[in-house]
């Protein structure tokens, strides 16, 4: 969808005209009370569920296909689900690889830095255009969860339930440190060309690959890595060299290579900055309780015990701030071995919690409880 009105951004800049690519699943009901917005994390897109068959015959499965679909925990037979690709991303919505109408050249590094809050404002405009005054729920994992949290603060009367999985109210110094290593890998790649690699017909592949490798380490738990790879050697013997020897090396390099083929380096830089900047308590002197004072939604938070990227402690801090405000909040702490990645994986306890939560919402929709109030 095209938007011609400029979108003012947190940085003070604005984006003049932009496109947001989105997908919808299910049907919006008569009183518009069953809409659910699903927000994506770092490397995902509007393609939340279902399968495309690519021109080469390969299958492109939605990034949360195990969660969203007919009969799934977020049941598209009951809910009208929207997936939207965020600004600055590289899956169709306006991003650094697109032409800046002011210069006639790709934005590149000149693409304005966007924040989680900017994304939420853009999503709200999309909701307006689709005739959705209020979401039954806004949901996301990791960075997607931050968008759901931001929705609860920026549009308190447009979100009834906020569902944030494996998320955090702010990044730790350690999280920012990992992001900066990733950014430095890209920025120092000679093929980066100050962000203008499009003009040079190259891609800073080495930088992207390293960025993904370091990121990927933070998505897995120590236990999970030990279980999957241990100290397994590809050839069974030490080679006394610097080639790929351990299975974990092979895995990370494979992930890095794959990623560097489809992801845009400028987008990676932008999105890691959006992660680093997210800190809604900052303008309240660091007081998260105050930051949540105007929220009206009910909350569901889920964390995973082995997630050391956005650890359960971060979710508990958030629960505490909600409890201080006497907000309705449900918190599930799933004892899963898969680290941060667990939010994308199948786990019957996790899926059971989400399914039960949406079942409660379905009943609220049926009873008319979630009917949007008339616009103020």
């Amino acid at each position, binding site marked *: 969808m095209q938007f011609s009105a400029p979108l003012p951004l947190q940085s003070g800049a604005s984006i003049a005209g932009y496109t947001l690519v989105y997908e919808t699943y299910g049907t919006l009901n008569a009183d518009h009370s069953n809409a659910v917005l699903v927000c994506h994390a770092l490397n995902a897109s509007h393609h939340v569920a279902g399968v495309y068959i690519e021109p080469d015959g390969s299958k492109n499965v939605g990034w949360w296909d195990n969660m969203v679909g007919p009969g799934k925990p977020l049941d598209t037979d009951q809910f009208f689900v929207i997936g939207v690709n965020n600004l600055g991303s590289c899956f169709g919505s306006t991003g650094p690889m697109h032409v800046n109408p002011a210069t006639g050249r790709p934005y590149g590094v000149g693409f304005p830095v966007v924040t989680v809050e900017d994304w939420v404002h853009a999503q709200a405009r999309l909701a307006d255009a689709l005739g959705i005054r209020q979401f039954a729920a806004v949901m996301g994992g990791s960075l997607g969860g931050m968008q759901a949290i931001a929705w609860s603060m920026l549009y308190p009367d447009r979100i009834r339930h906020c569902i944030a999985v494996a998320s955090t109210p702010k990044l730790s110094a350690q999280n920012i440190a990992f992001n900066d290593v990733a950014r430095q890998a890209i920025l120092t790649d000679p093929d980066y060309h100050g962000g203008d690699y499009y003009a040079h017909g190259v891609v800073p592949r080495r930088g992207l690959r390293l960025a993904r490798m370091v990121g990927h380490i933070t998505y897995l738990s120590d236990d999970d890595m030990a279980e999957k790879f241990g100290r397994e050697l590809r050839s069974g013997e030490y080679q006394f060299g610097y080639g790929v020897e351990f299975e974990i090396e092979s895995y990370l390099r494979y992930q890095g290579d794959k990623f560097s083929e489809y992801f845009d380096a400028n987008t990676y830089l932008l999105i890691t900055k959006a992660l680093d900047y997210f800190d809604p308590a900052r303008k309240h002197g660091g007081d998260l309780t105050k930051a949540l004072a105007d929220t009206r939604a009910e909350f569901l938070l889920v964390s995973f015990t082995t997630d050391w990227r956005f650890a359960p402690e971060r979710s508990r801090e958030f629960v505490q701030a909600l409890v201080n405000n006497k907000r309705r*909040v*449900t918190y599930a702490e799933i004892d899963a071995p898969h680290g941060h990645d667990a939010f994308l994986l199948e786990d019957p306890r996790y899926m059971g*919690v989400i399914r039960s939560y949406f079942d409660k919402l379905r009943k609220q929709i049926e009873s008319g409880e979630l009917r949007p109030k008339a616009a103020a």
Partner: protein
Amino acid sequence: MNFRELSVLRADLAFIAHWVTEGVHVLDLGCGDGVMLDYLQSDKKCVGYGIEIDDDKIPACIERGVSVIQQDLEGGLAIFADNAFDTVLCLSALQMMKNVEGILRDIARVGREAIVSFPNFAYWPHRIALLRGRMPVSKSLPYEWYDTPNLRCATIKDFEELANEVGLEVLECVALDEDGKPVSFLPNWRGSLAVFRLRKK
């Protein structure tokens, strides 16, 4: 959920529910499937939170519309501010805890009033079992000695002492029989479940 439904499901909880004032802010420690909070929310206009550790119980709480926070009570109640609740419930959960004294002190900190229940070890069939030289197994203590989740065995008299020590004044103590009915004659002999209504001193 209405009172009749609660009485059928859990007679002991139905008795205890009488002690909860309408419209108060409640914390239910070890809330299980959320049946008590469901009743208190729908019939007595209370609001609040349940704490539960068991994965299997969380979806049931969610479906009942209970705000449940999954947490081990042994970790304490640090997420709650002093005097955050009018009433703290700790029903048939205390006996499973290692740090009983710690949780009672936390209950006294976060709540103005508390209601605590636990199996009365001095219930007469338990005494007889012990006289026969065997650990008691009954409706209120339905486990063998080797598989019981109950770490602490207390009697009505024992608990009064500890409650006082942690800063809780006993307002009322009732022993319930196995059908959830109060026992007035020889409660420490004839009651299988001890129920205390307490107030911060």
